[in-house]
């Protein structure tokens, strides 16, 4: 294994974080949702928009050169700007790339963001609601899938859940413990899309979607955007917020496919996490809070194993022990996650990781004593993964 560079550890910081209105935000485009989140991040950081000389962003899959559209809306040119293409792993990769660009002298202050009107586009008509698809037709498979009734992201992830249950005896009760814990967290977050408590009985009563997943194993359809601002630690000293140091990051991509090898039960989080831990000089025992890409309940369970918080196959008992709740061994997705806060392709996980590391939340939302936050990004058909490790401000 190549050794991740320690020269990038603690050289940059997240100095601003923001989100748009979340959930159902009718009449606002993906681009304007992201402008809303970016504006909030800019105000939060106390920078001027003209201080920003880097943009790394992503939006709906059909947009071409999304960063150009965002630059035009922000009214700025940029020394460094691009759009990433790693699905839900893109957002952390954006933070990593920003750090590298700043270290290389290619930019000084970079804004990273994602926004999409997924609730609006899946509720625009009866047909759109049935298809439940946010990607354009040209990006969907036209053979080896639809002829078998294989549609949507739910099934591809449910395959892994079935296999994990077969190999390790994992149960739906254990998946349910994840959904219930994240809902508890969402209820403390006034911005969260889900406002009502969730019991284990309600989890089990929810309609089956693609077995073994029911409705409450699936993340939300959300109109949502999030953004963070990264700059060097020297520059960060003069800004409004306590700077949250970027200690390490990693990525790995199981390009052979979700269906290949053992990828559906051991995800790219394993290799991505090892890189990030080494860059940061920490291990799983040091992590005080985790913000895990929760497109589906099972994906949290398997990533927690891959990140070394428990052994492979022991994720079920680990999550059922209450570890993920506030006050547990590893409070996870403390803003409610994509299962209960809003699905923003992992961007809100980065936002929440940074906010936790500032230690400025009211007591009921703050993970007390957490010195390290681990954030994960996962996507592109379960192939791409990225990891971010943040330190206490």
């Amino acid at each position, binding site marked *: 294994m190549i050794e991740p560079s320690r020269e990038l550890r603690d050289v940059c910081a997240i100095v601003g974080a923001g989100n748009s209105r979340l959930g159902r935000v009718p009449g606002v485009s993906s681009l304007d949702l992201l402008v809303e989140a970016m504006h909030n991040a800019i105000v939060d950081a106390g920078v001027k928009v003209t201080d920003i000389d880097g943009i790394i962003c992503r939006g709906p899959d059909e947009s071409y050169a999304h960063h150009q559209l965002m630059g035009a809306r922000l009214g700025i040119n940029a020394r460094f700007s691009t759009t990433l293409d790693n699905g839900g792993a893109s957002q952390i990769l954006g933070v990593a790339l920003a750090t590298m660009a700043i270290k290389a002298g290619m930019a000084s202050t970079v804004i990273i963001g994602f926004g999409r009107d997924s609730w609006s586009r899946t509720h625009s008509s009866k047909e759109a609601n049935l298809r439940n698809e946010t990607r354009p037709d040209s990006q969907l498979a036209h053979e080896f899938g639809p002829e078998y*009734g294989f549609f949507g992201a739910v099934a591809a992830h449910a*395959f892994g859940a079935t296999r994990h249950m077969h190999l390790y005896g994992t149960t739906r009760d254990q998946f349910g413990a994840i959904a219930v814990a994240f809902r508890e967290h969402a209820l403390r977050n006034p911005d969260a899309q889900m406002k009502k408590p969730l019991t284990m009985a309600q989890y089990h009563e929810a*309609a089956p979607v*693609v077995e073994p997943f029911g409705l409450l194993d699936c993340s939300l359809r959300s109109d949502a955007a999030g953004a963070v601002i990264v700059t060097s630690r020297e520059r960060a000293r003069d800004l409004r917020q306590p700077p949250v140091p970027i200690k390490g990051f990693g990525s790995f991509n199981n390009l052979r496919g979700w269906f290949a090898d053992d990828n559906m039960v051991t995800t790219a989080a394993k290799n991505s996490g090892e890189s990030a831990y080494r860059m940061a000089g920490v291990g799983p025992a040091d992590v005080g809070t985790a913000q895990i890409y929760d497109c589906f309940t099972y994906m949290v369970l398997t990533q927690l194993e891959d990140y070394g918080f428990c052994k492979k196959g022991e994720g079920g008992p680990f999550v059922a022990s209450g570890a993920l709740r506030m006050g547990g061994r590893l409070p996870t997705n403390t803003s409610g996650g994509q299962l209960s806060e809003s699905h923003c392709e992992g961007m809100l996980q980065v936002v929440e990781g940074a906010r936790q590391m500032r230690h400025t939340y009211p007591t009921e939302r703050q993970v007390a004593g957490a010195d390290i936050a681990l954030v994960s990004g996962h996507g592109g058909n379960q192939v791409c993964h990225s990891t971010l490790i943040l330190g206490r401000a």
Partner: protein
Amino acid sequence: MPDTAKKPAPRPSPESTPYWKAAREHRLEIQHCDACGQFWFPPSQNCPHCLASNFTWMPVSGRGKVFSFVTYHRVYHPAFAKEVPYVVALVELDEGPRLLTNIVGVPPQQVACDMPVQVTFDDYDEGVAVPKFRPLKAGT
């Protein structure tokens, strides 16, 4: 709704056309590398094991086992409204490659990981036949 009640027929790529042509004649054929001797799927011009581009479309046993599977309850396409609950599985052929498919001829609750299966062909209209799998009969 026009056309929506029909299951979507596969739209072959240039590389997969021979696969679907064989399937229409109820033969399961996949690419076999002349250079390294391994099978691969899905179809592509170069062998993903050694990148050689000389290959032969070769009939396979049609036997394998269920690597994993899911059961659809939600209807994403009107043509599948009458099919739910139906099983979509990833079948690992005895020859190695994995195919996405349906498991038929058995109730969904009796499908299991590692269950032995064999190919069967489902004739869709428009001269299209789709390889599916059913439990392997004992003694075959």
